[in-house]
């Protein structure tokens, strides 16, 4: 029996799963069967393939066509199997990985899913592809790849390859807004520390002081994305932003939209991978999201189980949360009076001191009338700290101070013995937890690095501690 074999793939979270497609024919009334857990989107490709074949003057061979997708235990979905099927009908076997969606007139298009498959396959060692025309920016990420790009199905027969889609010029620098239009030197410093050491931040303040605006600009002061970071993002989400992603999320998001659904769609946390995830009105978020965020912050990946399937997505984002101090927003305002009852304020603040907020390194109170001094060379200083911390810890498996695992903080963050004793005494006296102490150490390491100082001094520790004391201060304001 003649069996034509071509292969394509699937993404499973950020993992690549090769899919072998076998095509065979049998005697009988005409029929086009697909087996191997094909979902509706793959079933539809029958019709697209039928008409695309017509566009090059061919038709599906007479009789019964049987297509098997292997491994058959994984659900196949997506429109990117069309091109592989067409190749099987028109040319027979192929060694290359084939992805691409085909329109009725025979033009080949790249879907989000096909970009994900190509990137994930490249990451796992596949180098030869037959695919739609890809943008130059995507090809740049995969220098070892051998791409046979087709714009129309007829090229499968003629063997002509198309050129890459040219990038629109000038996108590189667009959208990178630095901190220049942010008012207030304190908040600029906080943004700089957070970006430099990858420390999650909670910005608190009265309404209208510009909390969210700062959050948006944080990506602008980070070094631009490396190729491998871009490829990870492409493999898991199919998007390729020109600069680090800054994802605004809304407090009424659902857990599936936020973390990704086990059916295969990534969530906001993955779209923000190696960028900034902005959670506006942090205490308003659903409890299940806040609870779920806890493990994501710890593991820096999302894990979703769906029946027997377990998916993981990368989710190494910098969390920038913003919050009002109380339901009405005016607690701590220099002039206006907060009208909330003490119990409602305490309940509101209570949401900010839960397990998630515990994992946020810096809290900062944003004021409207802060003195505004220019902080010089922000991007450069952040970049220097990145390189310094990377060279220091890369062999340990992480590159930011914010990523130092709790059990290794004491070992990896060195503090002079006299300063350490002072810190130990103070921490014990104030009854702070170990986690709290680790945060102070990580944060002060980054602050010292920003100041280009080798040893952590008292002033660095004090600054780090002061970024942990906003909520206690707010509590003390409650009547």
């Amino acid at each position, binding site marked *: 029996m003649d069996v034509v074999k071509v292969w394509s793939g699937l993404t499973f979270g950020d993992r690549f799963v090769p899919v072998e497609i076998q095509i065979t024919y049998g005697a009988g009334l005409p029929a086009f069967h697909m087996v191997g857990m094909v979902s509706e989107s793959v079933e539809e490709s029958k019709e697209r393939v039928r008409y695309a074949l017509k566009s090059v003057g061919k038709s599906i061979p007479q009789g019964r066509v049987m297509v098997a997708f292997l491994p058959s235990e994984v659900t196949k979905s997506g429109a990117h199997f069309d091109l592989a099927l067409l190749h099987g009908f028109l040319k027979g076997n192929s060694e290359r990985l084939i992805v691409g969606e085909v329109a009725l007139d025979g033009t080949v298009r790249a879907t989000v899913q096909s970009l994900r498959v190509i990137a994930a396959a490249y990451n796992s060692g596949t180098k030869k592809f037959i695919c739609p025309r890809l943008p130059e920016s995507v090809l740049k990420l995969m220098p070892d790849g051998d791409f046979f790009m087709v714009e129309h199905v007829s090229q499968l027969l003629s063997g002509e390859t198309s050129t890459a889609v040219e990038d629109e010029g000038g996108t590189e620098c667009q959208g990178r807004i630095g901190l220049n239009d942010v008012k207030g030197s304190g908040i600029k410093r906080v943004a700089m520390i957070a970006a430099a050491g990858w420390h999650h931040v909670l910005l608190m303040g009265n309404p209208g002081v510009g909390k969210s605006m700062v959050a948006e600009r944080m990506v602008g002061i980070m070094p631009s994305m490396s190729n491998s970071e871009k490829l990870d993002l492409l493999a898991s989400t199919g998007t390729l932003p020109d600069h680090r992603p800054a994802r605004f999320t809304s407090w009424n998001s659902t857990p599936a939209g936020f973390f990704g659904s086990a059916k295969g769609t990534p969530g906001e946390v993955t779209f923000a991978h190696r960028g900034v995830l902005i959670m506006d009105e942090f205490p308003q978020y659903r409890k299940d999201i806040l609870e779920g965020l806890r493990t994501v912050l710890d593991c820096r990946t999302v894990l979703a189980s769906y029946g027997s399937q377990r998916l993981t997505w990368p989710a190494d984002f910098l969390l920038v949360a913003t919050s009002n101090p109380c339901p009405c927003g005016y607690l701590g305002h220099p002039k206006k009076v907060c009208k909330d009852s003490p119990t409602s304020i305490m309940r509101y603040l209570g949401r900010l001191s839960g397990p998630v907020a515990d994992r946020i390194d810096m809290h900062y109170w944003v004021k409207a*009338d802060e003195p505004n001094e220019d902080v010089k060379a922000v991007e450069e200083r952040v970049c220097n700290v990145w390189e310094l911390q990377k060279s220091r810890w890369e062999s340990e498996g992480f590159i930011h101070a914010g990523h130092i695992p709790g059990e290794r903080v004491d070992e990896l963050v060195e503090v002079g013995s006299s300063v350490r004793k002072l810190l130990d005494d103070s921490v014990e006296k104030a009854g702070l937890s170990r986690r709290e102490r680790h945060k102070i150490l990580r944060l002060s390491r980054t602050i010292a690095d920003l100041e280009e100082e080798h040893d952590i001094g008292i002033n660095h520790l004090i600054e780090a501690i002061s970024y*942990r004391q906003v909520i206690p201060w707010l509590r003390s304001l409650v009547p």
Partner: protein
Amino acid sequence: MTSSFYMLSPDDDIFCGRLEQQALNRPLYVRGSSIKPLEKTVGIVGTRHASSYGLKVAYELGKYYASEGYVVISGLAYGIDQKSHEGALEKGTTVGVLGHGLDFHYPKSTLPLRKSIEEKGFVITWYNHEQGPRKAFFRERNWLIAALSDFIVVVEAPMKSGALITANFALQMGKEVKAVPGDIDRDSSAGSNMLIFEGAEPVLAIPKDAEEQYKSCKTVQDLVAAVGSLVEAGQLIAKWQSTGRVILEGEIIHWV
């Protein structure tokens, strides 16, 4: 409750001469791990059945006076007494005055508080350790509170109450009495309001923090040295920064 205690005479150094002045010659029984001379003292008294407002003020006053270096003297009853002890323990030390022997405790609900006072300060009484509580002893205890204190703050007291008795003893001894104004329609603050009417100084505000005290600190190191703890210094910096009173630049503190 069988740990050791000390028997002191009224002219003992730790009283700094307060009991001698009152011409008295009864021994005192003391228990606690930190028995130090009472240099500056304040008595905070009030009713057991206080409003939530009264309890909060008692706590804040205890905390404030302790942070200013006063030893807070009170009677280890529940209500105002309990809160003022608790507030004081947060920032400093406190002394509980008992109306019975050291082997007893009344009321039961303040027993955990008594344990922590014995750890950080001490409790004191006139009675032999085997002596149980009696009604008449509490009047004598009130006298002792007044005698030990430099001045008395009445937080919330009804017209007929132990707190007013204490205040009267203090006035007889020529000591100052302050009172916290309370609601005019609340029976439990009628006594303290009356004290104000009769000339006691009203407590109009609780000083929030000791900002003035640290204004001379120009660097972070100075502040840490003055405060004595990194975490507390950090707390102060956070508060001052949030209210826009200081700007931190490296290790230099700029006062606005």
